[in-house]
């Protein structure tokens, strides 16, 4: 469902050019749980941002569910982000002035689905109950623990029924127990059919994925597919 072909990403500053991605090709199939590992600065976040179309590659083609996204307009790209991807960040990126429920409902504001607000509310409530935040809906991000914030972020990522969850070190800001809970939640969603691509530094968590990608210096050095079906 996601096909990357020979992706390059070069960051040019005044003096130097950094080759963050140096010819990356990757296939993610529907239902995969892909983990991406590698040393700091090897281009993991850059890769994830390019998959999610938060950034554009310098060179190379991306196909999402068969469609080349290279020439898409801002409107089409926005629609793509809204409908196909759910983003989970290391630092949660919840909007502090909105409560958790409003944060979770936010993607529907930009959705083509045009649900009546009552149904938006119902969907948000049921997703929040699923991630275990049913009793915290009117809280603001500042009133929640890191683990709860990340659950809210996952609920928000799920809200518009995306096809892929993209998580960049989702457990990076959490202690190991809370990290475990978040990982279990992602595994549970994957078991229900959600495709997940996760960047992590935690080898133990990475090993639980169905596809383990290792990167170094802007290149993919290793892809291990687990035999389990």
């Amino acid at each position, binding site marked *: 469902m996601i096909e990357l072909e020979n992706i390059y990403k070069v960051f040019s500053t005044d003096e130097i050019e950094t080759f963050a991605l140096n010819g990356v090709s990757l296939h993610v199939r529907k239902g995969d749980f892909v983990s991406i590992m590698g040393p700091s600065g090897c281009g993991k976040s850059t890769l994830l941002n390019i998959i999610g179309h938060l950034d554009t590659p310098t060179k190379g083609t991306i196909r999402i569910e068969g469609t080349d996204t290279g020439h898409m307009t801002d409107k089409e790209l926005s629609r793509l*982000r809204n409908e196909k991807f759910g983003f989970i960040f290391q630092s949660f990126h919840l909007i502090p002035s909105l409560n958790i429920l409003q944060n979770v409902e936010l993607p529907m504001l930009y959705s083509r689905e045009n649900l009546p607000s009552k149904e938006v509310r119902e969907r948000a409530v049921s997703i929040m109950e699923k991630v275990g935040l049913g009793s915290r809906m009117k809280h603001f991000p500042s009133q929640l623990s890191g683990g709860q914030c990340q659950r809210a972020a996952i609920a928000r990522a799920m809200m518009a029924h995306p096809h892929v969850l993209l998580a960049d070190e989702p457990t990076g800001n959490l202690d190991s127990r809370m990290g475990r809970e978040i990982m279990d939640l992602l595994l549970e969603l994957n078991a229900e059919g959600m495709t997940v691509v996760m960047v992590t530094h935690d080898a133990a968590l990475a090993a639980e994925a169905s596809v383990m990608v290792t990167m170094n210096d802007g290149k993919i050095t290793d892809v291990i597919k687990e035999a389990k079906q």
Partner: protein
Amino acid sequence: MKMVLTYIRNAARSAWNDKLYSTFYILGMAVAFTLIILLLTTAKLVRSDARPFVNAENEIRLGAWFTDKNGDEIDGIETQDIERFVLALPGAAGYSISNTEETLVFANGRVRMASVGFVSSSHFEINEFDFVSGRPFTEDAIPQAVITKSFADRSFPGDPLGKKMTIQETEYTVVGVVQDFSFLQNPFEKVVIWVSDRYNKFMPSYGECYSINILFDKKVPVNEMQENLKHALTQYYQAKGIDVDIRKDDVLTLQEAKFKYVGGNMFNYGAVAILLLLILIPALNIMTLSSAKVYASATEVAIKRALGATKWQAFGQIISENVLLSLIGYVLALIFVRPVISLIDRLLYTSRNAVSVLSGISLDFSVSAVTLILALLFALVSGGIPAYRIANKNIAAELKGRDL
């Protein structure tokens, strides 16, 4: 439609979440727009013909004195000669005579100093005074008076018609009330009470003459009006053996006089400059305030873009808050402008019984409309540039490693 409502709701919520900023923004805008409304209103009064004095372009006021070739002051046209003088004037359509005195007025048990105009009854017609109630005075046996609305409100609460007042030991009955007007509409008319010239006890003992307001036919070009007048005046004084020197300033139309005495002198340019500066200061403050706020929201905007907001939606959400606050400021300015006018009026004039710069100023539709457009423009400019830049930022770069 739903999207617009959402924008408004989000804008309101965002404004509410930052009350200090919103308060500053709204108050700053309210001050700026109040000043803009004042400026536009006064400019409009000087420029255009608001009632009364709608005939400013074809009305000429002859003063009570002229100068001869030696530069010595000579009396104006003698009272008994006025009618003959005007009737012989080509293109003249009507006239009134007037003489203004600051004098004591006894009304409703109180004594006030007030500007009283001793005028012929044609004065109301040729200047098209706007009667709130009643009518012009007639040259009846009973002395009658016409007063301005604000003088009526001060002196005769309730119905002023039929009430009595005494000026120079003559008792007058109020027969008409006219709408207030501004000094800007006619720099020569400062009167709040008009009575018939035939009761004027100051004349002729003071040796002063009447001013003559001559209305010309609309078809007569301005320079022809002025040439005719110069010619007639020269002849009039020649017959008396006086070599009069009629200058351009002696035969200005009311419109020219407005520009000369109100719109053109240094003080007024200074006042306009100060006013513009006063508008600029809150405007610049708010611009910096709002761009700082917009730039601070960069991460939030990037998050929304990651969730599927298009650049235009992101732009619209930022700008709608500015528009909302600016509009609230505009509405406040509309509410404030009247009290502000009367406050300024009170500060500028200790005696309220004369026409002042701002008396009779009212909120004009076109001025409100122009100010509304300015309010929207301001919101777009102050928020638009930073909003555009924020909406176009690279999402990935903006979200990297930044905590909200």
